């Protein structure tokens, strides 16, 4: 199922993770999972609530240690020397769900600088990274000298994301970065993440259950079901199989459903449409040629 042609940047190999071992509350969050994340792309990790997504995020940067199995970066086990796990956390940036709560400094600029400062970088380098991360995360210069507690929810979110981006990690894991924001806020954050990835060419993993967002922003999609890999591929590969998705509690993007409704109503629009932009172009095409050629991309 996993694409083996590209070398994985980061990999879970036969990982099992159990919570609260030795107590009556012991529970396996992941059972013998193997996942490979390709280098230099945005992978969308999807699955319904309780499918183990957030556990995977914390395993990837060494906050959790697998009960069994290995986590490998560039083929090397990150737990080879547990003492140096701190260094792994600089290589794998992790933005938690609702990361606003992690802000604490007096000014936004100093908060963004917190991670790079912990890395022991020079003052000039820190200043450069703060400016750069602020640009990607759409934190405007006038905000930099404000207190993070004066900002709006969306602004705080962007500052928190900038704080991790400023560490310039090889791999950036974001857990529901756009959750709970208005459409404009979602777009601003996800656009920023994509621009950052396209420029840095690093490996990004976005955990989300928004089909709409992932169809637009992820290069590859990974679907989990009950802590197991269920599907891996491009958005076309994934959304073609509606029945499969329904079975694991996910569904196609709304725009795809809309296009299918149009087809059902006898309008000759093409299939395989997963983003609003594609739908826009397709509908426009059909309008322009009142006798369109019909579906060339079948699903």
């Amino acid at each position, binding site marked *: 199922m996993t694409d083996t042609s590209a070398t994985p940047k980061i990999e879970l190999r036969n990982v099992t993770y159990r919570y*609260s071992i030795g*107590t*009556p509350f012991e529970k396996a969050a992941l059972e013998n999972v193997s996942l490979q994340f390709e280098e230099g792309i945005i992978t969308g990790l999807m699955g319904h609530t309780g499918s183990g997504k957030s556990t995977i995020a*914390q395993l990837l*940067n060494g*906050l959790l240690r697998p009960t069994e199995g290995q986590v490998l970066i560039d083929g090397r086990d990150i737990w080879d020397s547990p003492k140096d796990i*701190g260094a792994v*956390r*600089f290589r794998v*940036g*992790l*933005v*938690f769900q609702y*990361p606003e*709560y*992690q*802000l*604490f400094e007096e000014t936004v600029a100093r908060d963004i600088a*917190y*991670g790079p400062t*912990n*890395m022991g970088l020079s003052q000039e380098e820190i200043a450069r990274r703060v400016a750069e991360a602020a640009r990607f995360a759409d934190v405007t210069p006038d905000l930099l000298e404000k207190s993070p*507690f004066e900002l709006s929810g969306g602004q705080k979110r962007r500052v928190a994301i900038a*704080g*991790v981006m400023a*560490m310039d990690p090889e791999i950036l894991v974001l857990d529901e970065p756009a959750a709970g924001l208005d459409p404009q806020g979602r777009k601003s954050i996800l656009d920023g993440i994509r621009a950052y990835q396209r420029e840095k060419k690093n490996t990004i993993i976005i955990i989300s259950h928004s089909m709409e967002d992932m169809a637009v922003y992820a290069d590859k999609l990974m679907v989990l079901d009950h802590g197991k890999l269920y599907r891996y591929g491009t958005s076309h590969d994934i959304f073609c199989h509606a029945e499969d998705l329904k079975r694991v509690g996910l569904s196609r993007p709304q725009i795809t459903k809309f296009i299918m409704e149009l087809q059902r109503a006898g309008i000759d629009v093409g299939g395989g449409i997963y983003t609003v932009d594609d739908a826009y172009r397709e509908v426009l095409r059909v309008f322009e040629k009142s006798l369109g050629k019909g579906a060339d991309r079948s699903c």
Partner: protein
Amino acid sequence: MLKDITLGQYFPGDSILHRLDPRMKIFLIVIYIVTIFVANNPVSFALVLASAFILVLLSRIPAKLIFGGLKAVFFIMLFTAVINIFWTSGEHLLVSFGIVKIYREGIEYAIFMVVRVISLIVGSSVLLTYTTSPIALTDGLERVLAPLKVLHIPVHEFSMMMTIALRFIPTLIEETDRIINAQKARGTDFSSGTLMQRAKALIPIMVPLFVSAFHRADELAVAMECRCYRGGEGRTRMTKLHLHARDFIVLAVLVLFLGVIISMNIWF
């Protein structure tokens, strides 16, 4: 992890101790504490320790959980024991080098103190916190303290504050874990460096924790006012507490136990 602290937690169950009336439990615990402090000879200490074990058995809570919780107070016990060993003087000198003199009485005292602390913690946590839901506990406390209302002490408000505080302990622990993890992901190092550096590493945890605690308190206050909470005046209850036969039986057993311990003091 912080989650591993079990002392003071409620452990749902259906044992006789769970079913006792919370008001009665507060009385029982007072009697039990008096009993522990009345004990002053080896035989009664053995009985006190045995009673703590019996309480654990009655509660049907895994003993491992309860005694695991004692780890948190291990140093207090050790400290008490050491102080008693070195600072008690008596008639039977065992060891002496320089100014340090260890007497048999000192060692006896140290053992007694440790037994006392263990029985106190195990007994009171099994009798009260492990087996009483926080709501029942504060409800009971409010009733027991009700007479103080005559002195214009806001008993209801105190117990409401206690309920809220207890309710939010797990939430705050979870929150602290979340913040610690988020800051660790940004490279905070809590385990190395000088004392000053370690203290500084706590700032990124304390600030967000306080901010969110105040925020939450504010939201809770608004939510309570929205539901017309106006304090204890004229407030009725959904569940009324009733004393059952079992409450009086347990009371009788415990009073008898206190009597036995007292009479042993007289005989020995």
